[in-house]
């Protein structure tokens, strides 16, 4: 059984290697038009076939797990929501590496939680690969692009199915690298390249804390295997420090408040990437980790309180920022930060079931929204909503799909968002941690603002006067423009496929719906949407965000957090670096060169005595002798 899991993880990796090396291989590197096209076609096959294989294996694994008898003693406490759904779990260790202190075991482990997330990852990855065939048709670097996506998928699956924390960390970092490579796909424009560097560095900063958290757990439990870590009785103090450190990694990867500035800039990458990495999978990995080690987090209440506060600030701030953005993708990016904060709030409130349920639904509808946005951008040729309007007639299918997406985002009843967001709000309502009232208030307020920005985006994109004029040459950073018609079928199929779970996944949630809180959140959401509709109705041309009044620019610049970070961190480090180079040149190296010059000048000085006069020599001789005699007698 474990070989299936190994295969699931390895197939995309093989695809990546084949894509990187194989796609251009026979005809060498000559970059002609038809070479690129043939290479792109071959790369597409290298990418799609293995991921489909992975999908089928994952589905078979899920069915096996569902049929398996629930194991007597769940290896860790508490019957989990997915243990009921997918009780079967399997684990296999490839090898044990003796490091000298805590051993590292190359272990893969598939249980209910990881299979669920595995399904999400593979589905979205396949959808994105198919979508990219159309979206990146004549991009010269399509082979490396699709290969990196396969590598990313393999890394994400490694994180999902990892049984050992270090193996998990390995997948974690490779994901970060792939996000760097893919964000910087159009590296001709230095801004994209800088955005990629920023994304990698911010997540890397979080990962350092994550690694130290793993060390703390590993040393406390004597092994890095997740089962040992969760079953070992770790003293409360160590648990708190470990979980706090893990939070740093979670904040980095899932773009939570302290380290969220990289996600909006990550939109510089192609849209399918934003859909896959910055909506469904990588950003969800942080939440997945907390769910994976939930018994540890439950044991450390202060950490959950910190998580609650971070989530509250994150969801509200991001929602407000989304309301003021003009770029459609940045709206969705800030919305992602806000929704992730929701899941974090769910976890903080003590219900990982609600958080994972929301993660799944969010994965579906946010990927849908991004792919839809990709189609819209294709159609319009620019990201900015000021260039869009009245598209519901020209691209009906995308319109329908994005409507479903926005409905799910706002939490309107039929869509899945309604059920999962309700589960989270219910969990927050019933939790009894000190930060609960503050969290609950923020949650409700965010529901309203989410309704507002979803409605605003929906209206400004599809309604109002049509302003499309075919731009002559796409500015760097966007794919080429289609001639006004609907996106090609290869892009529409994935949108359609994703629309189904976005709509129906809510019903799959077996949990009962807490109608009281659901109604409250629905009313608040409709209220937010209504306000925006009223402003929009007044002046369809203008941006409803004007209702924010003086706070608009603050919201648009995301409360100047990014500029603050650059002023506090980036610029001083560069100044320090130049200072280090100067000191290295003058002080450390100076000392060395100075020693050399000192000896040379000493030699110059001593040579003066050698002026050739014999009597001076004899005088020197006698003076030296006198000195030595006196010293010998006196000191002797």
């Amino acid at each position, binding site marked *: 059984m474990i070989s299936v899991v190994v295969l699931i993880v390895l197939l995309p990796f093989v695809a990546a290697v084949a894509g990187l090396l194989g796609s251009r291989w026979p005809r060498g590197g000559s970059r002609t038009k038809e070479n690129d096209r043939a290479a792109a076609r071959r790369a597409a096959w290298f990418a799609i076939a293995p991921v489909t294989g992975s999908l089928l294996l994952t589905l078979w694994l899920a069915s096996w797990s569902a049929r398996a008898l629930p194991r007597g003693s769940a290896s860790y406490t508490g019957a989990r929501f997915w243990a009921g759904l997918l009780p079967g779990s399997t684990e296999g260790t490839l090898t044990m590496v003796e490091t000298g202190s805590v051993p590292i075991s190359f272990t893969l482990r598939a249980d209910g939680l990881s299979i669920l997330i595995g399904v999400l990852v593979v589905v979205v990855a396949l959808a994105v690969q198919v979508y990219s065939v159309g979206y990146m048709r004549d991009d010269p670097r399509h082979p490396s692009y699709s290969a990196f996506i396969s590598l990313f998928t393999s890394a994400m699956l490694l994180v999902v199915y990892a049984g050992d924390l270090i193996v998990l960390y390995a997948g974690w970092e490779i994901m970060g690298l792939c996000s760097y490579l893919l964000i910087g796909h159009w590296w001709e424009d230095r801004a994209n390249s800088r955005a990629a560097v920023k994304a990698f560095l911010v997540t890397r900063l979080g990962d350092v804390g994550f690694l130290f958290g793993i060390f703390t757990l590993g040393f406390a439990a004597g092994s890095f295997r997740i089962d040992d870590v969760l079953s070992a009785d770790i003293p409360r103090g160590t648990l708190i420090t470990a979980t706090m450190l893990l939070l740093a990694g979670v904040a980095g990867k899932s773009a939570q408040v302290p380290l969220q500035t990289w996600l909006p800039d990550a939109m510089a990458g192609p849209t399918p990437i934003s859909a896959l990495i910055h909506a469904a999978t990588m950003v969800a990995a942080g939440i997945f980790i907390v769910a994976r080690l939930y018994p540890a987090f439950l044991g450390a209440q202060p950490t959950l309180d910190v998580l609650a506060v971070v989530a509250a600030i994150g969801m509200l701030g991001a929602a407000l920022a989304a309301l003021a953005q003009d770029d459609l993708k940045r709206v969705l990016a800030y919305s992602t930060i806000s929704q992730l904060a929701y899941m974090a709030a769910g976890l903080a409130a003590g219900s990982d079931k609600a958080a994972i349920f929301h993660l799944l639904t969010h994965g579906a509808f946010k990927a849908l929204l991004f792919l839809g946005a990709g189609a819209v951008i294709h159609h319009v040729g620019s990201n900015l909503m000021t260039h869009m309007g009245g598209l519901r007639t020209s691209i009906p299918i995308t319109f329908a799909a994005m409507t479903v997406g926005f409905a799910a985002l706002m939490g309107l009843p039929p869509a899945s968002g309604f059920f999962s967001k309700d589960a989270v709000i219910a969990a927050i309502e019933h939790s009894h941690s000190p930060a609960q009232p503050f969290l609950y208030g923020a949650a409700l307020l965010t529901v309203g603002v989410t309704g507002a920005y979803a409605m605003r985006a929906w209206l400004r994109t599809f309604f109002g006067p049509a302003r499309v004029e075919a731009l002559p040459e796409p500015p760097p950073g966007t794919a080429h423009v289609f001639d006004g018609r609907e996106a090609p079928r290869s892009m529409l199929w994935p949108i359609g496929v994703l629309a189904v779970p976005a709509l129906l996944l809510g019903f799959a949630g077996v949990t009962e719906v807490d109608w009281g809180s659901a109604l409250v959140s629905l009313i608040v959401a409709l209220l937010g949407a209504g306000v925006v509709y009223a402003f929009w109705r007044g002046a369809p041309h203008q941006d409803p965000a004007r209702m924010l009044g003086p706070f608009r620019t603050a919201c648009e610049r995301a409360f100047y957090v990014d500029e603050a970070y650059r002023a506090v961190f980036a610029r001083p480090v560069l100044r320090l670096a130049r200072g280090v180079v100067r000191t290295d040149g003058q002080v450390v190296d100076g000392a060395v060169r100075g020693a050399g010059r000192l000896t040379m000048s000493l030699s110059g000085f001593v*040579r003066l005595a050698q002026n*050739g006069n*014999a009597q001076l020599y004899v005088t020197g001789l*006698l003076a030296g002798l006198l000195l030595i005699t006196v010293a010998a007698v006196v000191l002797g």
Partner: protein
Amino acid sequence: MHIVYPVVVSALLFSIGVYGVLARRNAILVLMSVELMLNAVNLNLVAFDVWLRDRLHGGQVLTLFVIVIAAAEIGLGLAIVLAVYRNRQSIDVDRLRDLSETGASEEAGPPEEPVGVGEDADREARP
């Protein structure tokens, strides 16, 4: 008489010889003052020999040798002074400055950087 007197006289004689060597400019006079120093040593040796009542008379034997050595040295010294005079027409010790640090490296010039070989110069030399 107590041993101190000859030793002190010998020391004084030695000092006069040293002064002579350092102060005089003429090579021959320097040689004479060296003789003075050697004779001071002889005085010392003989005085100790008598004071010690050494049955082997080591001191006096050494005095004889010192006298012989002094003679040899003076012979050789004068020969050298003669050679210097023939070559330099002067035996003024102060003016014999040809062999000196600065003298040697005048024409070559001080090295401008540690190894003294301009690397650009030989870089072009390379084929």
